[in-house]
């Protein structure tokens, strides 16, 4: 009797947690498909429409160009940060060179630096170089946040790979670089993939840099949300539609790396 009660209690608790997690997301998705008049009522019964999506992708909102900005900024950031970070992570993981600890600490500690500190000088520099409101500017500042983080993460994954196979390859006749290319990178591929997705999510969701450094041309999706606050008030149904556009690709990626999620993050943190 007590057991069944505990069992039911646990189920109920789990259901409640799932509800708390899913409700805000679900409400946003529902609102995105509501007509404006339904969006301001609380009814669950409504005639679904894709009109909001059509609206946000057309003038004056132009969500399409924001999507493009977000995709380009996130992709290029990942494409630059991950390869560089992977090489550095390998070096940190495998070699005991002089100054290694200091360098690693230096790179890690930059992760704790608030973005506001970095963005001030960048704003001034980009203004000077006429790079304000460009994707390049956003990519550069995003690298600052993402690179140390990815080094840390990939190092965790490489640390977990036993060195046996690498040594075997060296004896089999491979040079260090060849070992990295033929053995380490394929073995670390799942970890590198996970780190890349993580890095993509971070950049995609990045708000502060984009808010300060973009105005019109380089605006990314999260900053785009703010533009739905008009003099007429907040246009919730359009915000929700934009929110769905921000969320869906990231959710798919997040679920894809779900299994590696903790391993990558906690390994570095706890050890």
């Amino acid at each position, binding site marked *: 009797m007590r057991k069944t009660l505990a069992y039911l209690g646990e189920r109920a608790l*789990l259901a409640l947690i799932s509800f708390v997690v899913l409700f805000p997301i679900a409400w946003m998705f529902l609102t995105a498909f509501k007509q404006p008049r339904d969006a301001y009522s609380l009814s669950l019964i409504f005639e679904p429409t894709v009109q909001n999506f059509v609206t946000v992708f057309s003038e004056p909102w132009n969500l399409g160009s924001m999507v493009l900005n977000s995709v380009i900024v996130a992709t290029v950031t990942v494409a*630059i940060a991950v390869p560089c970070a992977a090489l550095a992570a390998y070096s940190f993981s*495998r070699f005991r060179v002089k100054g290694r600890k200091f360098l690693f600490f230096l790179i890690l500690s930059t992760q*704790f630096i608030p973005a506001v*500190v970095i963005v001030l000088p960048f704003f001034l520099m980009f203004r000077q170089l006429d790079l304000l409101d460009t994707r390049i500017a956003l990519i550069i500042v995003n*690298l600052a946040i993402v690179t*140390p983080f990815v080094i840390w993460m990939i190092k965790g994954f490489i640390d977990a790979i036993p060195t046996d196979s690498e040594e075997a390859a060296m004896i089999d006749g491979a040079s260090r670089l060849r070992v990295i290319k033929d053995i380490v990178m394929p073995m670390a591929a799942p970890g590198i993939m996970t780190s890349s997705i993580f890095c993509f999510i971070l950049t995609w969701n990045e708000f502060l840099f984009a808010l300060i450094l973009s105005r019109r041309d380089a605006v990314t999706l999260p900053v785009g*949300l703010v533009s739905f606050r008009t003099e007429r008030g907040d246009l919730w149904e359009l915000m929700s539609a934009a929110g769905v556009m921000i969320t869906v690709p990231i959710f798919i990626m997040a679920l894809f790396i779900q299994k590696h999620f903790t391993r990558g993050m906690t390994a570095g943190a706890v050890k």
Partner: protein
Amino acid sequence: MKDRLLPYWLLIPAFIIVLATTIYPLAYSFITSFRAWDLTKSRRPEGFVGLDNYLYAAGESQFLNSLWVTFVFVITSVILTVVLAMALALLLRRKGPMHTFTRIILILPFAMSPALIGVSYRFMFNPEFGVIANGLGAVFPALQGVPWLADPQLAMGILVLTDVWHWTPYMTFMCLGGLASIPRETEEAARIDGASNLRIVFGIILPQMRGVILVMAVLKTIFALKMFDQVVTLTGGGPGTSTETLAYFIFNVGFRWFDMGYASALAWILTAIMMFISIWYVRMLLSERKMATA
């Protein structure tokens, strides 16, 4: 001989990135923090003013307010997140289809853009057509028509809520990782010795989770200190300045009032706080590890 230099070659690309994107701007803003530079008046930095910017901050009520707001925010959000995450992890570590489902969906809040979270909660707490505001009003008549985001305390509460909603899942994953690394035997031995569930949690599990909890608390503290995104999209720092966190205040000084010198000094105060916590964190971790190996 080429092999001896390889470790350094591998570090160079990443190091250049870090140098150019972090170290250089840091140095730049550090120097700027000792200058007067009102961007609305001058395109170039004006003269050095020594510690003036820092001294000014010490007496400025709006800065002190933002410090206080940040402090309140950090304390409540860290405690709530860590405790909730620990409880969730204890619940979720068992196997079962519902457990698995909950674990999977838990990743969603963390993947969601914080700016978007702010927007969503602003919508849901809208007194007229917000689903939570109205839902609560329907269940508890006393809460009908409460101007949630227009009340300083409630606005802060909701700001904390969005942050807890965003971070608890991730912290839960960290906890689950920590729980998985505790050897099952100690718990089983205690169970055979006749310990109750509560005793096992407080007597056996939590003491072994100290290291993980410490890491979580410090990581969360560092991220909470930087709180910015939801402030912009949820409260705009208001009502008044009641939710104006330090990061948001610096943003205002720098990009509304364009006082670069003062903003740089404020940014460095925030950095100093974070550095202090980080160093303390590394120290704690090291001593914790010594204890574990001893």
